[in-house]
């Protein structure tokens, strides 16, 4: 028996609503150690995905102005600093404003080599798993590593 996305995905998936604000998303990504989170309507229909870089993109210009502050934030290695959270709290954007709408996805029957290929080709670490356009789980790179550790004979 070949194992598929359904066997290794994290379910139910952690998702956010389109109206979720930046500070909430930032806290979620940091506390769960996620690089991105799917954006879903209340019925779990996928509408986009928000990653760390989507949140930070608009700060590109302010980064130049606040070099020392950003350097400290990056190099310090602490949990989310308070001043960064305060900064994001002034941010009125929502998930719907910053999300990427074209999302690479898998289905429950997607094989592990197929999941691996999409992740490598697209340079991503997390794939939402869909059933009828609804998110039923997420497969991450670490789920694939765990699958290899578990039962390599059934991977392909």
């Amino acid at each position, binding site marked *: 028996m070949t194992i598929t996305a359904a066997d290794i995905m994290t379910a139910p998936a952690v998702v956010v609503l389109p109206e979720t604000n930046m500070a909430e998303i930032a806290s979620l990504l940091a506390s769960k*150690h996620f690089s991105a989170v799917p954006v879903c309507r209340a019925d779990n229909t996928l509408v986009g995905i928000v990653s760390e870089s989507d949140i930070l993109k608009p700060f590109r210009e302010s980064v130049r102005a606040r070099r020392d502050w950003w350097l400290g934030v990056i*190099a310090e290695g602490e949990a989310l600093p308070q001043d960064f959270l305060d900064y994001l709290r002034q941010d009125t954007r929502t998930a719907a404003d910053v999300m990427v709408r074209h999302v690479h996805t898998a289905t429950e029957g997607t094989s592990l080599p197929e999941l691996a290929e999409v992740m490598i080709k697209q340079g991503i670490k997390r794939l939402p798993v869909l059933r009828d356009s609804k998110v039923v789980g997420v497969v991450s790179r670490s789920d694939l590593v765990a699958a290899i550790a578990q039962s390599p004979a059934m*991977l392909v």
Partner: protein
Amino acid sequence: MTNRKLAEIIRRPNPVTLPMSATVQEACRLMRDHRIGAILVTEEDGRLVGLFTGRDAVGRVLAEALDPATTTLGAVMTVQPDTLKPTATAIDALRMMQDGGYRHLPLMNGAQIVGIVSHGDFCGLERARLDEETGFWEIL
């Protein structure tokens, strides 16, 4: 604080190592059990010869339909990875990761392995993909 030395950042003083003859499956078991993203590959005398990451397991083994139970690390590892001294700074490491396109850096005192730092050691969210923001690096 941006001049923090890497020696202060190392969270795992005894990094996980395997020989070149170990299999990809063994490496993945260690990465899963220790919740780490990379394994240092060493010779019997402890000399560093390679680096194998979770990304390699996905891209060089699973995506290529190789058998993780028989594929050895020697066949798919990154040979002689770049390294840094523990006296280097966090910014030195982030710069090297940016330039080299990798996320893990072994720390060496001469021929002796003293640790490994990963991109994730520097911060949570804000470690920020900022390294992908070209404008950011232009001002460093």
